[in-house]
């Protein structure tokens, strides 16, 4: 099963200076794929640790496999046969002599059974302990713990809403008291998977069944619960770090309000428009919720914010978050490196403590867009395929975390995230201007991405004003209309390209209609068509 891998770099673990602290671990197995696997491998290299990649057949030549010092095949493409195979991953760690496993996000990151298996094998799990994951990763248990710590939670059930014939009446009564519309959520869930919105009582049983099926498929656990849908609201989350000596700190917050199907599209830090007191309040609520379960390592507490200092606890994600990079840009911390040091039993670093002290008065601003293989004109449905051209932006204040490359097949088996494009600046308007510029540099062909959405959203006056909510996409994004605006130009380009054009030669193409040809429709001038379609803004 083991790939030949690349030869170990001689002396790759030798410290650059004799003052450099010893690496937290010798060799780290990265139990993930895509951009986050690459991100973690980079941190390993920065800390003078070796890395071991794992891969499915769909990823045999992926960037993360090539970047690691060694690589182990897990199985065929479906996650259940590869990246979710706990025993195979632990065995791979043992066979490669890895002393730590970093799960990234998704897949096994919040599976308490996996963390327990890793701990049992005498390998360090880079994340909260299995006990904490069980308490936080189970969203229902987390809601109970938060309530016990006097952190306000979103109204809803505190026990699983199992779809059993004898419980239907009780569930309907509970649902009625929560109020419609409500959300059916997976207890083991996250990222909108296993989630259903229910507007009427009669739709509840089918929504429960669908959510259970999706949750079982995605997480291997079909338990679901009910929660009131709070709208409009902003989604605000707090980055947490904790060491084994009982110290838990908040490293600032992020606003992730711009979502679609409960999947985040744009994130920024700090959250725009919050007062210092509000920021201190939400940081304190997050630390309280985390402390109540004895959080260690890194996690993120998520809240809904309805204004005037009112925050409702949603859940704690007991793992590294997709959008951790913007917190890194604002604080200067390397959160993955912090995770490794904490997992090795070291106390919170001085830098982390300092960042926590300044968390409510942070200087600088960072914004991230998630470039995904999704169609923003078709309700953001996944649009897998083969990447043709792939050009990512660069320049002042820009960070791009990606593992995608030209010619890659984007498999339908995994998350559609292709790249996280982040911009950092001294203030929000600088970061925003840089991100808009960066997105104008992006060139992707072969697959539809969310790029048009991001370009339009970042230019929207409401976004500039910091006026964001979880309803933003539904209220302000008309994907089909946006796409239609550009169709005439695309058709003209196709027509010009198809008509005889000597390759490479800059030349004007102009043709006149043939006389008397039996045409199906009256041709029209292209300038008029384009102008009538409302094409006013030109990228260059």
């Amino acid at each position, binding site marked *: 099963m083991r790939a030949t891998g690349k030869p170990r770099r001689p002396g790759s673990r030798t410290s650059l200076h004799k003052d450099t602290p010893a690496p937290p671990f010798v060799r780290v197995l990265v139990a993930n794929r895509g951009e986050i696997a690459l991100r973690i491998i980079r941190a390993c290299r920065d800390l003078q640790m070796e890395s071991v990649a794992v891969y499915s057949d769909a990823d045999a030549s992926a960037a993360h496999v090539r970047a690691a010092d060694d690589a182990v095949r897990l199985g065929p493409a479906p996650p259940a046969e590869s990246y979710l195979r706990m025993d195979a991953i632990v065995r791979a760690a043992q066979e490669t002599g890895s002393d730590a496993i970093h799960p990234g996000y998704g897949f096994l990151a919040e599976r308490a059974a996996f963390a327990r298996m890793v701990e049992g094998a005498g390998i360090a799990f880079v994340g909260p302990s299995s006990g904490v994951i069980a308490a936080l990763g189970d969203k229902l248990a987390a809601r109970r713990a938060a309530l016990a710590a006097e952190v306000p939670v979103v109204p809803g059930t505190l026990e699983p809403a199992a779809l059993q014939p004898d419980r239907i009446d009780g569930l309907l009564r509970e649902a009625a008291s929560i109020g419609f519309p409500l959300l059916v959520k997976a207890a083991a869930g996250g990222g909108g998977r296993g989630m259903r919105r229910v507007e009427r009582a009669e739709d509840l049983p089918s929504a429960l069944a669908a959510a259970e099926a999706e949750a079982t498929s995605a997480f291997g656990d079909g338990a679901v619960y009910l929660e009131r849908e709070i709208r409009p609201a902003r989604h605000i989350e707090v980055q947490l770090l904790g060491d084994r000596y009982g110290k838990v700190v908040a490293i600032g917050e992020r606003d992730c309000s711009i979502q679609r199907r409960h999947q985040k599209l744009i994130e920024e830090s700090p959250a725009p428009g919050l007062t210092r007191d509000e920021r201190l309040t939400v940081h304190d609520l997050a630390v309280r919720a985390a402390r109540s379960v004895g959080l260690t390592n890194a996690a993120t507490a998520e809240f809904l914010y309805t204004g005037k200092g009112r925050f409702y606890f949603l859940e704690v994600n007991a793992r590294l978050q997709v959008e951790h990079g913007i917190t890194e840009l604002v604080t200067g911390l390397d959160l993955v490196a912090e995770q490794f040091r904490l997992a090795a039993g070291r106390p919170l670093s001085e830098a982390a403590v300092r960042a926590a002290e300044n968390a409510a008065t942070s200087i600088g601003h960072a914004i991230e867009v998630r470039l995904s293989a999704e169609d923003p004109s078709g309700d953001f449905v996944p649009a897998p395929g083969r990447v*043709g051209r792939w050009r990512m932006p660069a320049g002042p204040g820009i960070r791009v975390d990606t593992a995608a490359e030209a010619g890659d097949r984007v498999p339908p088996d995994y998350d559609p995230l292709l790249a996280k494009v982040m911009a950092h600046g001294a203030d929000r308007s600088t970061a925003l201007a840089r991100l808009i510029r960066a997105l104008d540099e992006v060139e992707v062909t072969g697959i539809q991405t969310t790029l048009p959405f991001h370009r339009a959203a970042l230019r929207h006056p409401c976004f500039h004003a910091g006026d964001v909510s979880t309803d933003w996409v539904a209220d302000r994004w008309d994907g089909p209309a946006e796409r239609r605006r550009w169709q005439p130009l695309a058709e003209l380009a196709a027509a010009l390209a198809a008509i005889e054009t000597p390759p490479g030669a800059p030349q004007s193409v102009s043709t006149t*209609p043939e006389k008397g040809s039996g045409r199906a429709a009256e*041709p029209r001038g292209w300038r008029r068509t384009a102008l009538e379609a409302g094409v006013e803004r*030109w990228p260059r």
Partner: protein
Amino acid sequence: MASVSSATAAGPVRVSSLGAAPGEGRVIGPVEGQLRLVGPGLGVLRIAPGSAEVAVLMAALDPPVAAPPRSRAAVGVEVVVEGWRFELEVEDAARASLRDRASRERGGKGHGGATELRAIIPGRIVAVAVAPGDNVVPGQQLLVIEAMKMQNELRAPRAGVIARVIVGPGQTVDLGDLLVEIG
């Protein structure tokens, strides 16, 4: 743009989305504008002298991914403008309308119009809710495709009797694969 061959004569052309129904698409003529090629697959489009320029990315669609070309004379082009991706077919307008007429005449006494439902995303079939001979009503769930961990339900676009079910649970399907036929 050496990769995009030219199979159409200069003259009015019809541009249609790849896989569109016969007869759909728009006739463009005269084709006015300037397309300056500044690199492989990268063009700069100007709709009129002196107007602003738009960057367009282009690639030949060969072979087209979703459906066979309707005609050998059609050129498949992928165009990306402002992040939006279009799969287009360009062909001579006169030839296109001739072909439409021919297919209309053929279709007059042809088959009874079965509806073929094809995969709009690649993925894995996780459930099939119907069998051949079943009566279905519009909106009824036919099957569920899981792609990127999201379950996508395929529903009947119209009432009818299931003529064929081509796929089964666990099967992997590609974009455009035939799934179910409603008679």
